[in-house]
């Protein structure tokens, strides 16, 4: 088994705050990997660096044999790394199916102007898109504006439209955050199914420990921008440094304890406030 996705010594500072301080992570092909850590430990920043939304100050991102450090988001997506966002980023005034088609067009580009202006260019994507909507359970809302979906349904839509481009790795930023328990189970179930049946590789950030421990075969713990430990859930669960850094005494506790030191909100970049 080789690491499909790997980072080495990623450094990223925002002003005086060192958001990432040598973060390292390895995701084996065909596994579901987890990334945990206290608020402000740099999880989302690491996601942003991997997917090209942030450029690291130092360090390398490897996708298989290929260095993808500093590639633009669309290049990373085209290379085969799809991601969802902590606060879902769907297109609210497009219909659900149109959201899917926007993601599908990354796969093929129209060859000429007629194909660009024509409608047929992507009707063949429609079937696949509908199948995926069916898979995540929101096919009934295909022609509804995506903005009218509930928060949980938006998470499902974002998952579906990342999958439509058939990426090799899917990065999920808090897939279970703010979602009701039934839907959390549904999302976990879909991830498990994709992993088992298609061998799809996942890397997910999540605060819900039950979700992470139940789903992931490898867990990496970040603290203050550096990797503390990485390994199977049972080992991470009992690692003293992890307990100190993050989990506290009781693993089933979902509210993580307040961490000492500079706790900053994770910088959610690229929210579209101009450049």
């Amino acid at each position: 088994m080789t690491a499909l996705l790997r980072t080495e010594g990623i450094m990223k500072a925002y002003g005086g705050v060192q958001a990432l301080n040598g973060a390292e992570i390895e995701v084996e092909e065909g596994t579901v990997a987890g990334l945990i850590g206290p608020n402000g430990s740099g999880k989302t920043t690491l996601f942003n660096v991997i997917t090209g939304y942030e450029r690291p100050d130092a360090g390398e991102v490897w996708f298989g044999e290929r260095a993808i450090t500093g590639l633009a988001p669309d290049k990373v997506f085209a290379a085969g790394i799809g991601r969802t966002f902590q606060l879902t980023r769907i297109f609210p005034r497009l219909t659900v199916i149109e959201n899917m088609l926007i993601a599908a067009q990354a796969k093929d580009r129209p060859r000429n102007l007629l194909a660009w202006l024509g409608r047929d260019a992507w009707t063949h994507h429609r079937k696949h898109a509908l199948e995926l909507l069916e898979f995540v359970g929101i096919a009934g809302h295909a022609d509804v504006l995506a903005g009218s979906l509930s928060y949980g349904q938006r998470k499902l839509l974002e998952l579906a439209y990342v999958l439509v481009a058939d990426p090799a790795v899917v990065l999920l930023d808090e897939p279970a955050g703010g979602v009701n328990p039934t839907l959390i189970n549904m999302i976990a179930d879909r991830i498990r199914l994709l992993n088992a049946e298609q061998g799809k590789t996942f890397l997910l950030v999540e605060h819900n420990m039950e979700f992470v421990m139940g789903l992931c075969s490898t867990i990496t713990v970040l603290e203050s921008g550096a990797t503390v430990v990485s390994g199977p859930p049972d080992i991470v669960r009992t690692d003293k440094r992890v307990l100190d850094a993050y989990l506290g005494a009781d693993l089933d506790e979902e509210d993580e304890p307040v961490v000492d030191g500079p706790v900053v909100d994770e910088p959610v970049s690229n929210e579209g406030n101009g450049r």
Partner: protein
Amino acid sequence: MAKGGGLVVLIVLAVLFPQVYSNPSVVNYGVFAMIFATAAVAWHVFSGNTGYISLGQAVFYGSGAYAMGIAARDWHIEGTAVFELLPLCAAVGAVIAVPFGLIALRVRRHTFIVITIAVFFIFQLMAFNFWFTGGSQGLDSPFLTWAPVPYYQNFYYIALACTAGAVIVAWLVGRSRFGLQLRAIRDDEDRARGLGVKAMRVKLSAFVMSGTITALIGGVWFYFIENVQPQTGFDPLFDLTLVLMVFLGGFGSISGAVLGALIIEPLSLWMNAQPAFTGSLSEVMLGAVFLLVVLFMPRGIVPTGGELITKLRTRGRPAVVPATTIGPLSASSGPSANSVSSGGAR
């Protein structure tokens, strides 16, 4: 079927209008309405789809007018041959739109609006000061030897053809992959880029299309009114009027743009002609209409009316299919559901 039938009726009415009301002062309203309908649809192609509010369309309108005036003067073109310059007007619009877009489209929202206004004033100043633009006198068009009745009728049909062409282009854009990419950019540009939408290229293409159509109709307008000056060709009111038309009719739809133009332009012409509204009172009234639209119908006639019809048809029962209304599972939907209903407010 009913929709297609309605369209046919509209086209027949539009074609018959100058035959039934052949009085030039009436047809005059029609010519201006069609000119503005074309410009409003051109505005929709870029701004309506992308949500980038351009207040610099007069750059293209005036440039089209000046292109025709300068070419006709320098190349000594007269009579109906002047109409052969219309492709040149369109090309000038396209050529100007490329650098204009490359600069302005680097920024978003308010900054974009401010830059379009700035570019607009640069063009007005250039029209005042360049040696080939006729300064504050502007340019007169060559004389067209048509009798009054056919003069107005012919121009009406030319403008109508431009409107039809613009509507067809806008419709093709709207249903295509290109149009969907534009609307994705409107909703979340960064996310769209992350999914492989070539945002700059797509935005610029739409901007060039919009500029091309606007410059073309600017040429028609110039030959119709036989004169262009810096403050009429590059008129700040032109852009405000376009935006008012689209907001009144319905932001984001072709029919909204056309409807708004057909209401506002004859209305403002009529007000200008009334002795009671001398001076700039008619412009004050236009401003009042703008405020009323923003206050009471921020989404415009077409979306609001469409919903009203659905409501009447279903008599208050929840609508079955319409994608424009909030679906049945919206109870817990987040803030961006509201952005759906505030359409043009971005």
